[in-house]
């Protein structure tokens, strides 16, 4: 039997075999012209729907679980959209002027508003299109089937939706959701983030989804390769059951062996560390098996109503240091700028903040904030496992100035008789081309290097990460990137200091193999990747990685480099390769 395969973006790994549960009724959308005497009825139906949707949002707001609190804001914003005159009055006017039914009028209004927001320069505003669409879907669903909201599936099944809002996801009875498929979304959508957190396989941007699946159809979701099999035959089902078993076994194995050392076949050991956002992430220890924290982001505390005081910071940093001891924790000093800004920074209104007063530049300009943070770190340093790392370094001066400040603070703290560590290891985050070019000099004056791959690639390739027109240049295997990485690693080792890599790329098997081949001492990634990375590393040998890295370093042809790495990894890992998340290549189906 000819079967249909739909392709999508895998945003949460895993495999599921199940029946379709449509959430929204978008498929059967009504597009009907109405008579003059129906205008009033249709308008009333829309008003009722809007009122109902607002009430149901309000109810959901009450029940937002603690770990999803950040989504409360999103729901509040959607509640406001559900009462927005631009949306509601716009649709009401369309009903009257065009003599069309409420659902159709609403669809046209939503499309118009989404188009308006999608074209905006500000990525924040672009994302609001997602909220408008979510509200539109809710309203249309109510118009179609009345108060019985079907979002809360009670039977096992694969959830299929045009898109899901956080409110939808929160209303789900997750025990019954085997997988999620959406026609829109993308790897950074709410649905993607939530499904990964909940370990539910999920594909977004599935082409042709809404027109080719029907309620109760059986299908197979392959969240590893990024495809959906419609009308699978017995053989398909059997094959995917085996594959699912393989994946589950692999996942169980990596979790069970997470605390084993990451030692390669020939005895070379590397550290695999975790990147943490806040104290909330501490709960993933010690199960994730991470050898400490390679990057603790300190921005969280600075985005509350007021700036944190020293004692609050000491409490936070000490909690992290104490709960992870004897493992090591690298605290990155305040790195505001590119994504998030403090008031002082936003006031500058920089046209290109990624190249502006961010990271160490901002801290040295605002010594009050910087000194408070450094004092807190020195005081938390008495736990003996604290290091400090400086982001966005581009001159030797910035490092020296920070050292001088820390010496002053040591005297201050000593005079105040406050216990503290005066000799905290001080590292440089190498993420600007300038730092990469002077890394020999930096290495002589700091205690360790950490390579921030995301920013380094953007700055090296001269691309703006929000600009999709140049996204194709975001290519970590580009010879410029590979040579720079090697240069930094060698400079560190020349001066006898350690070097770690703490960008997202560290969890990518292709890049990981090359980094190991260049001889990095540690890699640091999101906690959920750590068990898989350790398992992967144990199957590599330092010798083979080195040979691969040497070959790639000699290559000036990107495509050839990619082929070399892919072939080697296929040979080493086989099917396991597709169990890992890689932004670089779509794994090849075998």
């Amino acid at each position, binding site marked *: 039997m000819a079967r249909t395969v739909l392709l999508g973006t895998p945003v949460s790994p895993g495999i599921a075999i199940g029946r379709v549960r449509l959430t929204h009724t978008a498929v059967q959308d009504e597009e009907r012209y109405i008579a003059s005497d129906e205008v009033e009825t249709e308008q009333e139906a829309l008003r009722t729907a809007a009122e109902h949707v607002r009430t149901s949002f309000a109810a959901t707001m009450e029940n937002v679980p603690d770990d999803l609190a950040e989504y409360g*804001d999103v729901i*509040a*914003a959607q509640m*406001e*959209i559900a*009462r*927005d*005159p*631009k*949306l509601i009055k716009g649709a009401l006017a369309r009903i009257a002027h065009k003599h069309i039914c409420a659902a159709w009028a609403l669809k046209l209004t939503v499309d118009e*508003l989404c188009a*308006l*927001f999608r074209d*905006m320069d*500000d990525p*924040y*505003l672009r994302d*609001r299109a997602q909220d*408008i669409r979510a509200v539109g879907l809710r309203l249309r669903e109510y118009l179609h089937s009345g108060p019985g909201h079907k979002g809360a599936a009670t039977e096992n099944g694969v959830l299929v939706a045009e898109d899901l809002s956080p409110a939808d996801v929160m209303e789900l009875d997750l025990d019954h959701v085997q997988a999620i498929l959406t026609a829109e979304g993308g790897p950074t959508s709410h649905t993607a983030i939530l499904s990964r957190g909940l370990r539910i396989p999920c594909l977004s941007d599935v082409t042709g989804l809404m027109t080719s699946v029907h309620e109760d159809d059986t299908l197979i979701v392959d969240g590893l390769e990024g495809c959906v099999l419609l009308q699978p035959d017995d053989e398909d089902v059997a094959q995917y059951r085996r594959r699912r078993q393989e994946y589950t076994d692999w996942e169980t194995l990596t979790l069970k062996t997470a605390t084993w050392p990451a030692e390669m076949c020939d005895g070379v050991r590397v550290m695999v560390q975790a990147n943490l956002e806040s104290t909330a992430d501490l709960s993933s220890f010690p199960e994730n098996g991470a050898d400490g924290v390679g990057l603790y982001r300190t921005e969280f505390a600075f985005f509350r109503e007021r700036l944190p005081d020293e004692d609050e910071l000491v409490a936070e940093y000490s909690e992290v240091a104490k709960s992870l001891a004897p493992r090591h924790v690298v605290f990155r000093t305040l790195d505001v700028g590119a994504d998030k*800004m*403090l*008031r002082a920074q*936003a*006031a500058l*209104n920089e046209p290109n903040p990624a190249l502006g007063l961010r990271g160490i530049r901002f801290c040295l300009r605002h010594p009050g904030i910087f000194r408070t943070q450094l004092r807190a770190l020195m005081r938390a340093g008495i736990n003996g496992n604290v290091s400090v790392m400086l982001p966005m370094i581009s001159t030797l001066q910035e490092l020296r100035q920070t050292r001088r400040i820390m010496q002053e603070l040591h005297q201050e703290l000593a005079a105040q008789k406050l216990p503290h560590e005066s000799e905290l290891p001080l590292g440089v985050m190498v993420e600007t081309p300038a730092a990469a070019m002077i890394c020999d000099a930096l290495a002589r004056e700091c205690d360790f290097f950490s390579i921030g791959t995301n920013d380094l690639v953007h700055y090296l390739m001269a691309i703006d990460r929000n600009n999709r027109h140049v996204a194709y240049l975001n290519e970590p295997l580009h010879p410029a990137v590979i040579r720079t990485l090697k240069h930094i690693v060698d400079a560190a080792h020349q001066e006898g200091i350690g070097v770690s890599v703490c960008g997202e790329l560290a969890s990518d098997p292709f890049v990981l193999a090359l980094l190991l081949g260049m001889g990095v001492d540690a890699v640091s990634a999101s906690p959920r990747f750590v068990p898989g990375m350790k398992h992967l590393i144990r199957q590599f040998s330092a010798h083979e990685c080195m040979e691969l890295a040497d070959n790639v370093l000699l290559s000036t042809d990107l495509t050839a480099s990619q082929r070399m790495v892919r072939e080697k990894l296929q040979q080493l890992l086989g099917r396991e390769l597709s169990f890992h998340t890689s932004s670089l290549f779509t794994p090849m189906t075998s």
Partner: protein
Amino acid sequence: MDEEIDQTPRGLSLRVSVGLRNGLHARPAARLAREAQRYSADILLISETGEVDAKSMLDILSLAPPADAELTLLANGPDAREALQGLARFFTNMQE
């Protein structure tokens, strides 16, 4: 405060500055729209880039005024003066 409100041919007008660290993003925009909805007067929010309905969060967002923008509020209707006074208080409170 009353002396800051001007009578113009298009209605009562008042200049306000945004002064929010991230500009008028979703939360403040939603609160501003809510406040405006309390009055029956028609209220326009005017910036260098355009004029929008102050009762619509989406409209306010689409105006995307920068954090340090100066805006003009224009109100027409029976409670226009109360509306402008209320919104002026709202902007002052938001900045604190």
